[in-house]
């Protein structure tokens, strides 16, 4: 059954979320979002990070209580903010990361937590098996009920999760990045399963950053930006470029103002600092080569999932590579661990400051001097006064607020945490500094400050390599722009030669 083209049609809507709003403090994460799914429809939910997708999903699964708005399923209004009610009424969710007991069998997992019982609370194994077999037959899914889940390939585990949701009579299935961990052939298999579910009248919400997959398997799409639903359309009516344009939005219009007024220094001072040749890692990125010059900022952009982060880790030595060479100042290097790279003057500001970057429970000072502690060593002891003075200098340079080195990093705002993270690496005085999404979750003011820090590093002669998905950011700070598509570095351009629309077109290109 083809999806209804007109989303306003009053025809039997399966799921109808109306006017959903979620406010955190003075931040509106979700702003009067309307979201509908028809029976037998696969609807893509698209938006860049922070667009409000996950907030919407969390409302639909009952994980959070919206500030206002309502959700009806099959015409009946659902009580919000209660996960068990959402499941009972038929909203199932397949999470990005598996949610199963790996040591138990497929059958046990399907009925986890709600085994049908007989007298004395004994599990009614026969009834379980009957019910499960019926489900598998109805949805034409081929699974061995006695296999141990942990030993199944990932795609099969996804199928178990799907069956688990179906066993609960899910009428709507939310799938959050369902193909994140799957190989290409398994993606096709999963898509076949989705089509089957669709033909049985299940409504599916498909959340993915992979535009390819959306164009392959989805009927309709809802595009979100800044907490609002900004477009609903049939997939057939859309092009990739149009989708990305909608995701990026009015930033296109701001391009000229952002880009103007800053001198660009493509290839900086003409000295090659970092040279990457033929870098590959199986299943990640292939044959990546580029030169990075002192005194320039090179931004690598692309869709999420284009493996930019993995590439940066391979250069820094914190994750392996299969082939290729890295040269610093013309000398080949072989970084086996981050310490090797640091000894060669390479710094790396990782993407997730909470997971990989900062010691949240330690003080600002302790975090700032972490990479340079050896410089404060007198015999065996650390020079506390020297550390405090250095920390004060960094705090002043970066204008960290509050300007108190004894504060725990946890107590700082996101923007100031990020400044501490960047500052920790700048203290190293790196020749090459790599930054992965340096302004995610940071307010506008702190963004501008981080940009000026990057420019100051560049003007000092450092080679700056930035990974960013934020095109406005790329157009603002880059001297040159590299575009990565599906694990390959597609092209590198001088920023002055490119408009944002051209960058968008290249990112979306096959």
């Amino acid at each position: 059954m083809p999806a209804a083209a007109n989303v306003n049609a009053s025809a039997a809507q399966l799921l109808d979320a109306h006017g959903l709003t979620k406010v955190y403090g003075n931040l509106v994460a979700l702003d009067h979002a309307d979201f509908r799914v028809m029976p037998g429809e696969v609807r893509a939910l698209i938006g860049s990070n922070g667009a409000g997708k996950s907030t919407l999903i969390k409302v639909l699964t009952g994980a959070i209580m919206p500030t206002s708005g309502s959700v009806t399923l099959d015409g009946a209004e659902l009580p919000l903010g209660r996960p068990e009610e959402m499941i009972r009424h038929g909203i199932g969710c397949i999470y990005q990361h598996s949610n199963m007991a790996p040591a138990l069998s497929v059958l046990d997992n399907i009925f986890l937590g709600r085994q049908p019982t007989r007298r004395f609370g004994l599990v009614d194994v026969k009834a379980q098996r009957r019910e499960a077999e019926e489900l598998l037959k109805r949805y034409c899914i081929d699974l061995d009920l006695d296999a141990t889940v942990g030993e199944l390939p990932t795609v099969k585990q996804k199928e178990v999760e799907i069956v688990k949701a179906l066993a609960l009579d899910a009428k709507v299935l939310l799938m959050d990045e369902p193909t994140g961990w799957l190989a290409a052939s398994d993606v096709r298999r999963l898509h076949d399963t989705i089509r089957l579910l669709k033909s049985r009248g299940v409504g599916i919400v498909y959340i993915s950053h992979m535009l390819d997959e959306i164009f392959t398997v989805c009927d309709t799409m809802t595009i979100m930006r800044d907490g609002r639903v900004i477009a609903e359309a049939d997939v057939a009516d859309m092009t990739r470029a149009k989708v990305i344009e909608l995701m990026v939005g009015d930033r296109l219009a701001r391009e000229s103002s952002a880009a103007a007024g800053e001198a660009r220094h493509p290839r900086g001072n003409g000295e090659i600092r970092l040279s990457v040749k033929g870098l590959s890692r199986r299943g990640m990125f292939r044959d990546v080569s580029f030169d990075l010059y002192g005194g320039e900022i090179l931004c690598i952009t692309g869709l999420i999932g284009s493996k930019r982060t993995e590439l940066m880790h391979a250069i820094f030595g914190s994750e392996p590579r299969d082939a290729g060479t890295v040269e610093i100042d013309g000398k080949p290097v072989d970084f086996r661990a981050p310490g090797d790279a640091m000894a060669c003057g390479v710094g790396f500001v990782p993407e997730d400051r909470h997971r990989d970057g900062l010691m949240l429970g330690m003080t600002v000072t302790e975090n700032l001097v972490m990479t340079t502690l050896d410089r404060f060593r007198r015999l065996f002891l650390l020079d506390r006064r020297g550390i405090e003075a250095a920390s004060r200098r960094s705090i002043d340079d970066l204008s960290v607020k509050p300007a108190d080195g004894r504060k725990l990093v946890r107590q700082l705002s996101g923007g100031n945490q990020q400044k501490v993270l960047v500052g920790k690496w700048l203290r190293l005085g790196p020749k090459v500094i790599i930054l992965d999404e340096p302004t995610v979750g940071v307010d506008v003011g702190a963004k501008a400050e981080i940009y000026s820090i990057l420019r100051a590093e560049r003007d000092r002669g450092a080679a700056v390599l930035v990974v960013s998905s934020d095109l406005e950011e790329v157009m603002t700070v880059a001297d040159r722009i590299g575009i990565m598509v599906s694990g390959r570095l597609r092209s590198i351009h001088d920023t002055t030669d490119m408009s944002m629309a051209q960058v968008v077109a290249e990112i979306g290109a096959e």
Partner: protein
Amino acid sequence: MRVQSAFIAVVLFFLAVLAFFCVFAPNFATASNFEDLMAGFSFIAILAIGESFPILLRGIDLSVGATLALAGMVAFDLTLMFDVPGYVAIPITLAVATLCGAVNGALIVKLRLQPFIATLSTLAAYRGLVYAISGRQLVPELSTTPLSDPWIMGLDTYFDIGSATGLSSLIELPWVPLSFFIMIATLVVFGVMLGRTRFGRDIYTVGGNAEAARLAGINVGRTIIIAYAICGFCAGLGALLMIARLSTTTESLGMGMEMSAIAAAVIGGVSLSGGIGGLAGPVIGTFLLGMVLIGLTLLGISQFVQQILTGVILLIAVGHDRFLAVRRQKRLAANLAEEA
């Protein structure tokens, strides 16, 4: 160094328990009682100092009791079976114990074992080794021979602080055992190491967030191995003090003592979730436990009740630790929600 609220809590609790027993337990507030307390619990405090290192790394060392027994047996064999003088036997004993700890660390780093599993295995292995090399079994007549090496037996010395300072004319002071001073020296050396050296910072960093530590260029594996080696060293030191006091050793020396060490560390504010805590806390935690045991005995309360109460104190400490951790996480989540 920041003073943790858990540390303040244990100090206050310590003082309250001290005051309680001084008032209610007969013969508690006497010089000889405090002498017993210091002699009986200083070496456990040393174990607790050592145990704090793995726990700061979000790990645990269950093998300290077995390591202690192995070190004790090595010292016994060297001096009694091979007539090795104490000034040689003592360094060898400490080296063996340090090696035991380093092996734990290496298993955790190289084989990527869970610290619990790795040290549970070595607990069994080290204890088995004790029986295998036991001089008491190999040369039966030695089992009744007391240790006589002057270097080792010299560890069981007491100092009359009162008459040395002339205070004994005013107040009766306990004779302080050498083991107490060794414990204080251990506390100072490792405390400075933890608070004021690069290695100490690395311990907190790795325990707080191992992945971030790795990306900051810290050699995480080496840090872990050294930390477990320190734990082993402390067990060796504890073994020497213990056999000196007993003037012999047995195969079951230190059986279950890992529990006291872990309990003292946790009661002393070393967080089981890693990265938080100091070394003074575990020392106070040890004497708190010791005080409760001795005090309850003096009150005539049965051994079993004492064990129950020890368990309850541990539960309170761990519960408090978890409570603080959950509160930290909630605050963090609230901050994240605000900025997300």
